[in-house]
């Protein structure tokens, strides 16, 4: 019963400040820009191969590459930062605004509170996933349709990809909770999140793909695991991704393990500290 109360309280915390819709708006804008923009650009290169070649860019898609899943997967392949951010802020804002005091007065069992945060951010992440895929499918399919290309919305594989993508976004939410408990300083957590997802991991994935041994390791990087779970990513055509990839369920387990382990370590350390 207490766990249910704690979960309800965590959801109220998420939805009673403006942060969640700020994050949702940024997510929609970012995904719409890339899925729609990239879709329009690729549609144009297919329609005008000569003009595209003249730009000097090698924009030729690998043969047999399916465009629709690629565009739709922008929701998770670039949008995954947002559920991590929401999850991390759910923890760090309690430290920053010292609201841990009223939180732990209402529920003195700290592990119950942390468990509620984990589950609430799993669900909130899934919610952001639904928003992100609705955006990427709407804008991506519109771009494809405008150039008379196949939107593949009648293919069950497409919907399976979307489902796996929503699951990936949910798991990223829990990784955010783990990050927040490990790095309780809000600014530090945000800086680490941006630096890791935008610079460190892409470089590591590129570097790892250069060698067969490191490629085996590289597929366990969280972004690579997430792309493996979803099953499509712009990384595969941007040629920075490793050719090695986990099975979708393995990718999911890697994400889940990162979220659980980070939260447990944080729960055993910062979360147990004196609240002064």
């Amino acid at each position: 019963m207490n766990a249910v109360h704690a979960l309800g309280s965590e959801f109220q915390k998420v939805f009673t400040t403006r942060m969640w819709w700020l994050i949702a708006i940024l997510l929609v804008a970012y995904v719409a820009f890339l899925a729609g923009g990239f879709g329009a650009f690729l549609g144009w290169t297919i329609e005008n191969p000569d003009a595209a070649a003249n730009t000097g860019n090698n924009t030729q898609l690998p043969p047999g590459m399916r465009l629709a899943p690629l565009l739709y997967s922008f929701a998770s392949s670039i949008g995954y930062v947002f559920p991590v951010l929401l999850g991390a802020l759910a923890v760090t804002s309690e430290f920053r605004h010292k609201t841990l005091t009223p939180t732990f007065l209402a529920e003195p069992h700290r592990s119950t509170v942390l468990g509620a945060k984990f589950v609430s951010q799993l669900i909130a992440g899934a919610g952001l996933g639904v928003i992100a895929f609705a955006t990427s499918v709407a804008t991506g399919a519109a771009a494809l349709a405008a150039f008379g290309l196949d939107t593949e919305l009648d293919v069950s594989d497409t919907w399976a990809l979307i489902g796996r993508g929503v699951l990936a976004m949910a798991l990223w939410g829990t990784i955010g909770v783990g990050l927040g408990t490990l790095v309780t300083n809000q600014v530090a957590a945000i800086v680490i999140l941006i630096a890791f997802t935008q610079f460190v991991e892409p470089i590591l994935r590129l570097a790892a793909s250069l060698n067969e041994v490191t490629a085996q390791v590289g597929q366990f990087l969280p972004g690579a695991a997430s792309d493996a779970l979803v099953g499509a990513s712009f990384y595969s055509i941007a040629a920075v991704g490793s050719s090695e990839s986990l099975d979708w369920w393995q990718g999911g387990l890697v994400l889940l393990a990162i979220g659980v382990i980070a939260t447990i370590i944080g729960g055993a350390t910062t979360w147990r500290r004196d609240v002064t």
Partner: protein
Amino acid sequence: MAAGIPIEISGLTKQFGAVTAVDDLSFTVEPGRVTGFLGPNGAGKTTTLRVLLGLVRATAGTATFDGKTYHDLERPLETVGAALEADFHPGRTARNHLKVAATAAGLPAGRVAAVLDQVGMTEHADRRVGGYSLGMRQRLALAYTLLGDPGVFVLDEPINGLDPEGIKWIRGFLQALAREGRTVLVSSHLLSEVSQTVDEVVIISKGRLMKSGTLASLELDAAPRTVADSPDRPALAAALDAAGFAYTEGRSGFIVDNPDPGAVGHAAFVGGAELSALHRLKSGLEESFLTLVNGGEHE
């Protein structure tokens, strides 16, 4: 309403690294009375309250509510209402802060409107807390304590930041709670702030207990002294030295450790020092409080 139960602090010690914030502290707070928990800033009041509420782990000793730690209370918000430093998320409204807590504690949603009304915050309830004055935050913190209609109240500096009207209001409020048989523990660094409200005092300094008893007993503790001043202070000092009196020099003259103005006047006469003031120092609560508190600091 939950029944008032005693708060028991026993042999409590808390060290933060090399600093001992609370040092072997023991006292009991009984229901039906308002107890002032007094001491200067940094005396260890807030640390003691945070240990009591399970937010800070004690190095040694226990702090319980009728034998149970806060962590072990089955329904904490319905047993203890606590207001510490008034910290809220600035982007959340007062009503939503209370809803978040009410949900976590499994309290009926109707309690939120009821307590907002009780502290007179209904008209401001849907504003974000970031724009609140300190006084409004204090009222919101009080509303939080009332959510579970508990039998025990633990309030850290609740009067700080209130306007005179607010102070009058909270005095009546705390006394009403105590009259209903609840336990009320109120901390303050100013005795004058709570002397019209409290029945009992617990005074600490440097983490140690200086005094625990009724407010009236504190008044009796103050040893009366004499104030004497002279246009020629060195001459008066020499006269007091000659008579063997201990004294300290203050702004309004010498404070002599002797209750009898006659004896001090005689010493001045004998020493040939002209007196411009001679009277008994009114031994007030504040005086007695400061003596206790400074006594702790000199050790």
